[in-house]
C-alpha cells in the first residue's frame, strides 16, 4: 500500500491544449479518492498520468514516497480498470485474470490459486472458462476488477468503471467496489463524471473543472460547503438553485431580498460567513432543492422563510416529488454554472417566464400539481452565498 502525491502536476498536449493545470493532491494510504467533473475536465488525463500512460508535462508525481515521473508504467505497481473493461477477447476469464501473473513468471500453482481466490472474491467461479463475449456487462466489469485485484498492487486506478452498466447494476457494483476497496485497503483513485458515484463512494472527492482543482474534501463537506459556483452547481442532483439577491439590513439583522420575497438570515450564518460586509450589495444566493419544503399545516417552521411560488412542472420520482417553479429574482448566469449543470434549468426558464427557475424536492405525497399556487419554506440555516464577481463562496 502506498500514498500518492501530485505536486503541481500538469499536462500540455503537443497542440497546446492544457488538459491538467498544476494539480496538487495528496491521497492517503488506503484512501478512495474520487476525481469528478464534467467531461473534458481533465480527470481522465490526470488518472492516465498517474498510470504512466500519459507523459507528465510538468510537476511531480510520488507514489509511496518515490518520485515516479520517469518510471515506466509497468514498474509503478499500479493496476487499472478501464471504462470499456478492455478484456483480452481471445482469452478466457481465467486467462484474462492471470495474464499479469503469467507475465511476471509466477509458478503455475500459485497463479491457479490466486485466480481461484480472486474469482471467489468476485463471484466469478462459474465463469472462469468463458470468453469475454459470452459475458454480460456486469460480469465483464467483475473480470476487469479481477484483473486489477490479482496483482495486489500498491494503487488501483479506475476510469469510469461503471459508466457502461445499466442503472440498477451500477448501484449494485458501486457498493461492491467500495466494499472491496475497503476490504483490500488499496489506495484508489476513481474517476467519474457521475456525482452520485462521487458522493457515495469517495472518502474524499476532488472536483475538477477545465483541468483545475476546484475543491477537495469529504463528500458531505463538498456538498454542504461548496467553495464556488461551479462546485455548487455540479455536486447535487437536482442542482442547487441559484439566483441573484441583495443582502440588506433589517430589524437589526440581515435579510436577503430574493425578488419580491424577503428571507431573514440567521445571525450565526451572518457571523460565520462575514455577511456584514455584503450589506447593500448583490450576491448570488444558493438554496438546495431539499432545503425548500412545503409549508406545514400548522404554520411556518422555526428557521424557515416563506416563498410564494406557482408550480410550473412536477416530476414524481416515487421517493421524491420534484416541483419546478419560477421565482421573480434575476437568474445567476455564469459560465461556471452552465458548465456544471449542462445549462439544464435555464432552458426551463426560457419556456416559462421571466425570473429564475427553482426546483424543490417535496414529500412524495405532498399532492402538489402543476399550476398550484403554493407557499414554500426555505431552510434559512442552509443558505449559500457566492460572490458574483469571483464566483467563490462568501466567507470561506
Amino acid at each position: 500500500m502506498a500514498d500518492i502525491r501530485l505536486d503541481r502536476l500538469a499536462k500540455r498536449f503537443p497542440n497546446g491544449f492544457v488538459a491538467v493545470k498544476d494539480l496538487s493532491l495528496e491521497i492517503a494510504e488506503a484512501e478512495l479518492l474520487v476525481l469528478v467533473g464534467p467531461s473534458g475536465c481533465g480527470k481522465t488525463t490526470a488518472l492516465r498520468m498517474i498510470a504512466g500512460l500519459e507523459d507528465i508535462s510538468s510537476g511531480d508525481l510520488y507514489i509511496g514516497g518515490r518520485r515516479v515521473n520517469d518510471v515506466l508504467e509497468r514498474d509503478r505497481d499500479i493496476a487499472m480498470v478501464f471504462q470499456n473493461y478492455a478484456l483480452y477477447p481471445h482469452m478466457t476469464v481465467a486467462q484474462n485474470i492471470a495474464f499479469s501473473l503469467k507475465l511476471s513468471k509466477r509458478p503455475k500453482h500459485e497463479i491457479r490459486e490466486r485466480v481461484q481466490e480472486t474469482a471467489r472474491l468476485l463471484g466469478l467461479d462459474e465463469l472462469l472458462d468463458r470468453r469475454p463475449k459470452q459475458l454480460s456487462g456486469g460480469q465483464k466489469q467483475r473480470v476487469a476488477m479481477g484483473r486489477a485485484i490479482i496483482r495486489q498492487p500498491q494503487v488501483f486506478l479506475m476510469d469510469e468503471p461503471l459508466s457502461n452498466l445499466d442503472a440498477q447494476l451500477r448501484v449494485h457494483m458501486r457498493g461492491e467496489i467500495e466494499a472491496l476497496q475497503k476490504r483490500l485497503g488499496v489506495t484508489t483513485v476513481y474517476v467519474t463524471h457521475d456525482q452520485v458515484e462521487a458522493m457515495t463512494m469517495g472518502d474524499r472527492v476532488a472536483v475538477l473543472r477545465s483541468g483545475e482543482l476546484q475543491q477537495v474534501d469529504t463528500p458531505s463537506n463538498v456538498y454542504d460547503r461548496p467553495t464556488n459556483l461551479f462546485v455548487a452547481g455540479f455536486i447535487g442532483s437536482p442542482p442547487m438553485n441559484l439566483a441573484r439577491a441583495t443582502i440588506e439590513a433589517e430589524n437589526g439583522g440581515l435579510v436577503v431580498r430574493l425578488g419580491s420575497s424577503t428571507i431573514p438570515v440567521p445571525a450565526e450564518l451572518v457571523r460565520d460567513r462575514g455577511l456584514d460586509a455584503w450589506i447593500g450589495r448583490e450576491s448570488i444566493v444558493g438554496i438546495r432543492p431539499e432545503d425548500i419544503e412545503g409549508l406545514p399545516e400548522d404554520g411556518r417552521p422555526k428557521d424557515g422563510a416563506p416563498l410564494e411560488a406557482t408550480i410550473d412542472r412536477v416530476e414524481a420520482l416515487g421517493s421524491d416529488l420534484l416541483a419546478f417553479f419560477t421565482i421573480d429574482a434575476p437568474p445567476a448566469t455564469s459560465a461556471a454554472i452552465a458548465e456544471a449543470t449542462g445549462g439544464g434549468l435555464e432552458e426551463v426558464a426560457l419556456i416559462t417566464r421571466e425570473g429564475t427557475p427553482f426546483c424543490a424536492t417535496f414529500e412524495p405525497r405532498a399532492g402538489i400539481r402543476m399550476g398550484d399556487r403554493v407557499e414554500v419554506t426555505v431552510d434559512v440555516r442552509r443558505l449559500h452565498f457566492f460572490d458574483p464577481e469571483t464566483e467563490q463562496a462568501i466567507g470561506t
Partner: protein
Amino acid sequence: MTTVALDHGVKLRRRRRTRAQVVKYLALAFVALVVLLPVYVLLVASFKSGTEADPSRAWALPEVWSLDAWREAWNGEQYGLFPYLKNSLKLVIPATLLSTMLGSLNGFVLSRWRFPGADLVFLFLLFGMFIPYQAVMIPLTQIFLEVDFPEGLPRLVFAHIVYGIPITTLIFRSYYATIPEDLIEAARMDRAGMLRTYWSVVLPVSAPAFVVTAIWQFTSIWNDFLFAVFIVDDPAQWPVTVALNNTTGSFVTPYNVQMAAALLASLPTLIVYILLGRYFMRGLMAGALKG
C-alpha cells in the same frame, strides 16, 4: 381505406424494388459474362485435341472431349509444368509468410507502439509501393551480385519479401488501428512490453488481417512474371509463370496444351481463395469492449 392505400403503397414500393433488383442482376450478369467468356474459351480449348484446337473454332465445344492436353501440361515431356509448379510453391510459401509476418510487426509498431517519426517512416515505406518493378531491375541485380546473394529462387524470395513490405504494412497498420487503444494499454498496465503485447494480445486477434494479406501476397507473388524472368537464370528454377510463357512454340502453338497449362497455373490462387476465404473471421474483436 387507409389500410388499402397503405397496402397499395407497400406493393408499389416492393414492385419498384424488384424491378430495380432485376436491372441490377442483369447488369451484374452481363459483367460476369464479359469476364467469364475468355475463361470459357480457355476451358473448352483445354479439352480439345491438338488438331481441333484452332482459334477459328474457339467458341465451339470440343467434338471429342480429351484429357490429353491436361496430361501434357501436367507432366508432358515438352511442356510439363509440374516441376515449375513446385518451384512456384517453394517461392510463394516462404515469401508470403515472411512478408506477411514483417507487415504485421511493422503495422503494429507504426499504429500502436508508436515512436517519434513513425509517420515519416510509414510514408517512406509507402513510397515503396509506387516504385515499378522495371525501375529496380538493374540496381536489384547489381546488389545481388555485390553481396553474392545465393542465386535462383532465394533471390526471388528475397525480392518479393522486400517488395511486399509496403502493402503488407499498410494493410496491417489499418487493421491494427481498429484495435481499441484500451486493449493495448491494458496490456501495458499488466506489465507487458512491446513484444509481449504484440505476441499475446495483438497477434491472436490478427487473423482477419493475416488472411487478407496472405491472399494478396500469394496472388501477386504467384502471378509475378517480371521479377522471375530477370532474377532467375536457371531454367530448372523457373516459377510456373515463366515456364508457361515458354509453352508458346517457335513454329507450332499447341493451343489446347497452352490453355490447359494456363488453367493449371492459375488453379493454386483459386484454391487459396476458396480455402482461406472461409477464414475471414468477423467479430473476432467482439467481446473486448462493453456489450
